């Protein structure tokens, strides 16, 4: 894995360690709790997590991290990765501009 930023790399390492510790069953639970937490109002979530996670710090941490990420996921991956447009064909022929067009 390429490490370009010191902080980012060690953070990724830490996340990976947490993930490896989790079993399939725990992951399924994380997904369920995440989903259920979303059904609660933001101000009610902490209490909900208290009830559901109890002493399970790992689960709570994972769910909270996911919730926090989901809160500002915005349009991330909201549309498919690619689309094909006629404009792309025209631009391809005539322009010198930098584009994100795929030539293969």
């Amino acid at each position: 894995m390429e490490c370009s930023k010191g902080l980012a790399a060690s953070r990724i390492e830490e996340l990976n360690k947490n993930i490896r510790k989790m079993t399939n069953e725990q992951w399924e639970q994380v997904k369920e709790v995440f989903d259920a937490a979303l059904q609660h109002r933001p101000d009610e979530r902490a209490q909900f997590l208290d009830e559901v996670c109890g002493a399970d710090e790992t689960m709570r941490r994972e769910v909270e991290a996911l919730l926090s990420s989901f809160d500002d996921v915005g349009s991330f991956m909201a549309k498919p990765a690619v689309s094909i447009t006629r404009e792309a064909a025209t631009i391809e022929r005539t322009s010198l501009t930098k584009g994100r067009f795929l030539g293969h």
Partner: protein
Amino acid sequence: MNQQQEITKLLREWSDGRRSAFDELMPLVYGELHRQAARYLRSERRAQTLQPTALIHDAYVRLVGQTGIQWQSRSGFFAFAARVMRHILVDYARAKHREKRGGDAVKVPLEEALLMTVDEQDVDLIALDEALNRLAKIDEQQVRLVELRYFSGLSLEETAEALKISRATAARDWNVARAWLHRELRS
């Protein structure tokens, strides 16, 4: 065995886990996606966006047609096409990354290119690819879901059907996947 039957057989083998089936199928599927894209671009239709779903569907009709059990092989084909798209896009991103010092994107004449505009949000495809590989170790099905949604452009309903899960589960797993990947990509 005609070509359609051969392709259906390879799709089944690939989804059963025979990895070498990917190498055999890839050029066929990629070639057909390319042909369909070029055909669309040459058509008289007014400027509009072709979603990957439509493209893949056309390729599916050509390559698999009526052979095999209709919806099962169709969703298998979409899963495979999603993998092909992911593969192509990541390869391209890596090549472009290596050439980055040069500046301009690599241009290829219209007739030879599979022309696609990449998602406007400028997702780091290399990072996404690596994150998906990590996610696969936790949850294989979730990665297939992401591929079907993001690379093949299937709806939640279609994705649920393809994976034989409920729509509610598909919706849930899609939210989790996006949250998880978003976290991975911004760290």
